[in-house]
């Protein structure tokens, strides 16, 4: 990279959607970005090549994945200064039909996987006396959602994790915050549309109707929130939950 090497960011769940948009945004702002997803089907290494970054595919629900990734990144560019905890698993079903395996998979990836990964990045941040942890939660983690209880519970767990980390690590210069998006116009919409038997545009319209601002967030909107929290604007922001979800969490039933 030309000029001063920038600080290192690690983005999980970066193969597509808002993880990918976040990696692109942080790279544009001068970060050296390591990108993670459960496997590299070509998209991760392509993203890494585009951004001058590094692909670190791994299943974060594997307890050994976090330390191994952090060590690999340290050897490449140094300690992780900004962690964006974005990877997530989601399975929708009525609560009574929910399989225990699905419940635990969502908790293992979304909550426990990031718990371990955060443990792995903290020592390097402590040495630097500075670090930013940005946790991608969900509007559903704030207000809940029918047929998504496990997902919502995992995201609510991440919000509590964020607040605890804010209090515990803030005095060490490590600032943890969360973002609670809601409906985002990403590849996931296509999956949702197929599940619902709708066209992509019908799916978009159905979601728009649920959003007070009548607009889906773009992945870039959420990446902007990450960049704000990672940058100088985030210097006094600790343990907060940003909610760029168009007012979804403002609505009353």
């Amino acid at each position, binding site marked *: 990279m030309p000029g001063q090497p920038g600080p290192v960011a690690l983005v999980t769940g970066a193969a597509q959607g808002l993880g990918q948009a976040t990696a692109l945004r942080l790279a544009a702002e001068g970060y050296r970005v390591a990108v993670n997803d459960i496997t590299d089907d070509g998209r991760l290494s392509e993203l890494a090549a585009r951004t001058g970054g590094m692909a670190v595919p791994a299943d974060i629900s594997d307890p050994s994945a976090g330390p191994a990734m952090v060590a690999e990144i340290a050897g490449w560019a140094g300690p992780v200064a900004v962690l964006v905890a974005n990877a997530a698993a989601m399975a929708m079903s009525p609560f009574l039909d929910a399989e225990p395996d699905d419940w635990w998979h969502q908790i293992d990836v979304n909550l426990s996987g990031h718990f371990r990964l955060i443990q792995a990045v903290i020592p390097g941040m402590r040495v630097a006396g500075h670090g930013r942890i940005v946790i991608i939660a969900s509007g559903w983690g704030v207000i809940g959602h029918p047929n998504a209880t496990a997902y919502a519970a995992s995201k609510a767990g991440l919000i509590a994790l964020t607040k605890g980390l804010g209090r515990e690590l803030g005095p060490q210069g490590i600032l943890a915050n969360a973002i609670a998006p809601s409906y985002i116009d990403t590849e996931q919409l296509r999956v949702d549309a197929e599940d619902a038997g709708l066209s992509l545009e019908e799916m978009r319209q159905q979601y728009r109707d649920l959003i007070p601002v009548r*607009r889906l967030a773009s992945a870039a909107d959420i990446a902007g929130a990450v960049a704000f929290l990672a940058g100088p604007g985030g210097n006094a922001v600790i343990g907060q939950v*940003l909610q*760029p979800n168009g007012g979804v969490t403002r609505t009353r039933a």
Partner: protein
Amino acid sequence: MTSDAAPTAFITGAASGIGAACAALLRGHGWHTAGVDLNPSDTDLVVLVDVTDRTGVAAAADAAVREFGQIDLAVSAAGYYEEGIDVAEITRAQWDRMLAVILGGTIHAAAAVLPHMLRRGQGAIVAISSELALAGSATDLHYVAAKGAVLGFVKSLALEVAETGIRVNAVAPGPTDTPLLARDSLWRKPEYLATLPLGRLVTPGEVAHAVHYLAVEGSMYCGEVLSPNAGAVI
């Protein structure tokens, strides 16, 4: 960005503290600024008016539109602070003045810019509230009540205009290093600062960053409260 295409900010309380920091940051990003204050502000258009004067604030917004063509952002930062008063000792005059300046001033600023923003179908309104309104606070109850009322106003107006491109949000700073905090303020005491996860006061510039972010990238925030508060309220 050419000067003709520069966005315009309308800022109350622009002469000092958070309002002044917003004006400085926005000007640094190439914005035109109109500053409403009792005192002269370092802005492109200086309007000396009391924010409790609804007509005066409306005239100021009209002047800003005449001068710059539009208003892209309104920041309601005008306010003052009184602490160390038990609730039973707050006089009627103190209540009335506090509500008139902080809540009334915010309503007047929003009402002044809304017609212009509605005409274009876009704009951002950011009201400066306080983390005290999120958690409550003793011995400054009239200030906290006024800042809390601002949050109710913001959330409701945000929903009212949600289907337009106008976004209404609040920034609720923690204790901020401005002239509003007296030298002997409780919030400046080392024992208090040591309780904050950040261990220090928020700077006016940090609050301005939050305002700027909402103005330029805040299109998905609708009635939200962004709180750069040093960890005072989590």
